């Protein structure tokens, strides 16, 4: 199956802020943050349609999110997942002795996963903590 390697950053979005105040257990939070924003060029490289679920993997873990086209762009070669548990499944725990994880600038691979589901924040965290994961 096709896959691409890309530089991942995370950060705030206004939808992330609004949906988190509306309740992180709710569907709106999943819709706002269980996504990866990718550039047109990277969609082409990966050979998938927009709004397809994809699996994002790094040396730190993997997560299923929905690939949408970049709202802040263009930025070929770079992808964005809003800050939240989805981004944190793959983010770097390396702090280089500063105490601060490297939330921005993580090398990830993205592959299509149209059959897999994007979990809610609570399910994602509970499954990871209490499941066999």
């Amino acid at each position: 199956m096709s896959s691409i390697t890309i530089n991942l950053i995370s950060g705030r979005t206004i939808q992330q802020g609004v949906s988190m105040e509306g309740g992180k257990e709710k569907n709106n939070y999943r819709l706002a943050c269980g996504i990866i924003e990718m550039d047109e060029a990277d969609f082409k490289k990966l050979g998938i349609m927009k709004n397809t679920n994809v699996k994002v993997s790094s040396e730190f873990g993997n997560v299923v999110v929905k690939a949408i086209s970049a709202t802040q762009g263009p930025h070929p070669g770079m992808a964005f997942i809003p800050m939240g548990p989805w981004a944190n499944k793959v983010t770097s725990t390396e702090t280089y002795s500063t105490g601060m994880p490297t939330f921005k600038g993580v090398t990830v691979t993205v592959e299509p996963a149209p059959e897999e589901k994007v979990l809610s924040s609570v399910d994602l965290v509970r499954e990871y903590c209490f499941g066999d994961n």
Partner: protein
Amino acid sequence: MSKTITDVVCPFCGTLCDDLIVTTDDEGKKILGVDNACAIGAEKFIHSSDHSHRVTRPRKMQEDGSFKEITYEEAIEHTAKILVNAKKPLMYGWSSTSCEADSVGHEIAELCGGIVDNTAAVCHGTTLIAVQNVGIPSCTLGEVKNRADRIIFWGCNPAHAHPRHMSRYSIFPRGYFTGKGAKQRKIIVVDPRPTDTTNLADIHLQVEQGYDYELLQALRAAIRGEPLAGDVIAGVPKETVYEAVDVLKSGRFGVIFFGMGVTQSLGKDHNIDAAICLTKDLNDYTKFSIVAMRGHYNVTGSGQVLGWQYGFPYSVDLSRGFARYNPGETGSIEVLKRQEADAIFVLGSDPGAHFPMRCVKEISRLPSVAIDPHITPTTEICDVHVPVAFVGVEVGGNCYRMDNVPIEARKVVEPPEGMMTDQQFLSAVLERVKELKAN
């Protein structure tokens, strides 16, 4: 009939807007409308006043993973016991609550030999390290509004993260010496992506992600008139760097606002060292200041209270009976990675959503309690969840804006009946801890 409350403070982001107008019903129970707030701030007020979605009594996780309601007394007992029984409890959060509550929490941490850490650990911690390295020439947002004619946003996207920052302070307002508002200001945005903030910029320095340090040092060299090697520096054409330098030097008063793009990328505190030194260098030509775009509405206050009590603004380890501070060692992320804490207490933050997942898993293994008005990923993996009143909505308290100006948050409605505040809960835990320690 309805009541209108003016000059309400928004308890969401570090901008801490203090001009909201909240309309409530006659009894002061329900919020009917919020004016002046951005979409996030408005949602916070409206959501909090809809009690049907809220957990109103503490809950304890059962063997099967479900939750069962318990009393506040039981929750106080649970919390006091896990803290007293632990050798090194991690007490994390303190950023979405008042300074008064923080102070009570620190007293508990002192008695129990805990680590007190706030959300700077995953946000502006590296900024605080840099400030200790090289100092900080800073100013208040009022000065920015009234004086600044050169603004840099470096690695931040206020259009999304601090939505009213630009209209209240940094781009659009007309102030004493800035009567023409946006027309009088030149805006430079440094970001690897074109964003809603770069759209408002006169110059967008589209830095290659992770190369902020190079660009900062190149700007410093160019300001001193040194030649720059190479045609492209950190992804930015050399001419654009010179153009930016001319704009910066020609201003009367400039400010650098910076965010997670520099604090969390490679280089970390060294990036901020360079940004602060750039500010210092610019003061050879004009007046320049630098301000961190702090996230949680009172993370700055947590740092202030820790600072005046222990001398350090975050990641304070009290386990040896005196304050130690070395973020690369005593910071929450490293402590969790090393599996060194033997209990966790969370208040005023959601590490379950905002820590790397490996650290979240460690939290779920520990004896734990989460104090939060919301249901969050953290509350769903902790042994006990204690709901409390929203600070700044249902109870007042002191908070610090991103520029270290203290602002008193206000109460606008009553909390759900019988619900405790952070400070009340912490005070009760403190009393119980003292009793348990005495025996």
